[in-house]
């Protein structure tokens, strides 16, 4: 090859590189109008009306901002909680109006850009652990109310913790590529053919509620291209299965009850969903919860599994463990105790094709959230130290294959893995 043709090839390669960088940059910035004002002087915030603050407080509940932006036992909204992702730990920053460490010098424009375009005040791209792929649908008026509410909080001095991400995920370039592939900033579009109730539900579920952040499957890069369908998915690192939300798997009123109180006759909010009910949905109005339920039930129901469920190999052991440890509360026929202990017969969580949640419940037990509608919940004991892997597998299979339940059996190895990976 002559030096001339090498030069030509180098030129082509350089041009290609330039073109991809330009494409990624364009995909990151498209649709973004220049923000009029991103910084403001201290003390210059316009006072918000009580109605606006009340609305903002309600929306902050709907978005469960507090859930990530409050460290365990720490000041509310002052940040510091680490969100574990497959790429490392992302620490939520301080949302209180502290001038040095919080949003004290932010403007409503800057806040809108963060919510809508996923960019920080200084222009940095934000990690999608902050669910802006969903928050991008929040309307400007709501974003402004939310911002006014956050600005009304007592400022807390709490410097941001540095994210602990592995290379190359800690670079803005990698984030830009991710965003080019998986993020589109979007406007909320009313569906003309649907009722106002359905539209309100869709707006809350797809926007602030950010249900898709957990209830949709993700690829190895944490991207999801079908999130609108809420088909369910395994939550990375948490090892909880966030079930599909479409279809009428619960009567509508029971779904509302579940979101409002944390418990319903055949369901209770456990694992990460207990937190969502505890900090968020229990505070939403009846009308909004109804609207969310209407919208969710209008989504397509998940298809039933194609393969018949594998039968348990050790049904006798399962029955024995159930009689010894479970029947006292859940009943000999898995009927539960109304108002106190969930029935297992016909229980959707028990029947999910993925057995993770059943195994987690047996291992760790748990309390549904204490809510205004159910302030003194009954709790399930943990069995991780009382039962071996084979016994937990057998009893999980037993409850999944008795009283009309027809879910695949659970293997000992699945219990072993759940036990080893248990972190939360």
């Amino acid at each position: 090859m002559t030096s001339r043709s090498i030069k030509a090839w180098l030129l082509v390669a350089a041009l290609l590189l330039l073109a991809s960088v330009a494409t990624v940059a364009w995909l990151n910035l498209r649709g973004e109008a220049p923000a009029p004002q991103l910084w403001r002087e201290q003390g210059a915030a316009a006072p918000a009306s009580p109605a606006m603050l009340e609305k903002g407080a309600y929306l902050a509940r709907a978005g469960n901002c507090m859930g990530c932006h409050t460290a365990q036992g720490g000041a509310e909204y002052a940040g510091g909680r680490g969100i574990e992702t497959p790429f490392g730990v992302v620490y939520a920053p301080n949302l209180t109006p502290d001038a040095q460490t919080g949003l004290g010098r932010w403007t409503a424009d800057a806040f809108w850009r963060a919510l809508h375009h996923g960019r920080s005040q200084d222009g940095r791209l934000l990690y999608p652990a902050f669910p802006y792929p969903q928050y991008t649908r929040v309307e400007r008026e709501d974003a402004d109310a939310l911002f006014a509410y956050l600005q009304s909080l007592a400022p807390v001095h709490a410097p941001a913790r540095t994210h602990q991400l592995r290379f190359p995920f800690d670079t803005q370039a990698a984030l830009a590529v991710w965003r080019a592939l998986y993020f589109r900033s979007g406007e909320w579009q009313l569906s003309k053919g649907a009722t106002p109730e359905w539209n309100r539900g869709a707006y809350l579920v797809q926007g602030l509620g950010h249900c898709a952040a957990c209830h949709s499957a993700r690829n190895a890069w944490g991207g999801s291209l079908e999130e609108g369908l809420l088909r369910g998915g395994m939550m990375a690192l948490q090892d909880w299965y966030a079930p599909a939300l479409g279809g009428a798997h619960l009567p509508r009123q029971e779904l509302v009850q579940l979101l409002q109180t944390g418990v319903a006759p055949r369901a209770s909010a456990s694992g990460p969903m207990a937190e969502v009910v505890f900090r968020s949905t229990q505070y939403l109005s009846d009308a909004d919860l109804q609207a969310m339920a209407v919208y969710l039930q209008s989504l397509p129901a998940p298809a039933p599994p194609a393969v018949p469920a594998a039968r348990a190999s050790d049904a006798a052991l399962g029955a024995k463990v159930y009689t010894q440890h479970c029947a006292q509360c859940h009943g000999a026929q898995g009927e539960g105790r109304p108002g106190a202990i969930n029935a297992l017969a016909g229980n959707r969580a028990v029947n999910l094709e993925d057995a993770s949640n059943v195994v987690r419940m047996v291992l760790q037990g748990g309390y549904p959230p204490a809510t205004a509608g159910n302030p003194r919940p009954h709790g399930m004991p943990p069995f991780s130290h009382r039962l071996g892997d084979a016994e937990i597998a057998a009893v999980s299979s037993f409850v999944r294959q008795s009283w009309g339940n027809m879910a695949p059996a659970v293997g000992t190895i699945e219990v072993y893995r759940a036990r080893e990976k248990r972190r939360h």
Partner: protein
Amino acid sequence: MDFSNRSRSKAGVWCSRLVCEGRPALVLALLLSSAHAQPQPPVDSMAWRVQACSACHGDQGRATPEGYFPRLAGKPADYLFRQMLNFRDGRRSHTQMRYLMAHLTDDYLREMAEHFARREVPYPPPLRPQAAAQVLAQGEALVRQGDAARALPACVACHGAAMTGALPAVPGLLGLSRDYLNSQLGAWRTGARHAQAPDCMAAIARKLSVPEVAAVSAWLAAQPVAQGGRPLAQLPGPAPMACAGMELR
């Protein structure tokens, strides 16, 4: 914290000595007889609501001297309440406890604490001492006298001469396993266990050497429980140091 320091039966299941060492028939008989003796409480009672606790802390929070998990029955309500807050808010670290407490309110946790504080369950006799006489003597001296030279207060100065604790918030020290006592004092020394500041027990534990912790735990775990384990109505004397854990809230 995990359970790896406990023994496993051949079946690979954690269990108490009574069950694992070949007397399941006796246990069953005991369970059946107690079931006959007492009518079951209604399903909306606190007894049902705290079933989640009994798996580790025993029926009515009685625990067992063989097990690791501490007794809850009869401990001062304020102490129990604060410990639940400490788990929930990250001052004490135990994955399982944190998980169970995470989404419960102060009101409900207080009610649970009061439920267990009211349980009057007899204490079993202590296990035989598990250390040499010399070690036990060192432990007893630290518990009863402390060490004035190091400004180390005696345990009995707050926990009472009978070491059954004092209302409203000082816990009893007896009826706990040596492993649990070692683990708690160790956690205070290393900063894994906290209380609200000023955290007197952290300051005290940091003055103890590892052998001293072992001596104190070995001696305490071998003492019988006096006065039914009931805590004193108030501190036995002026508190030797500032301690947020003793203040009423």
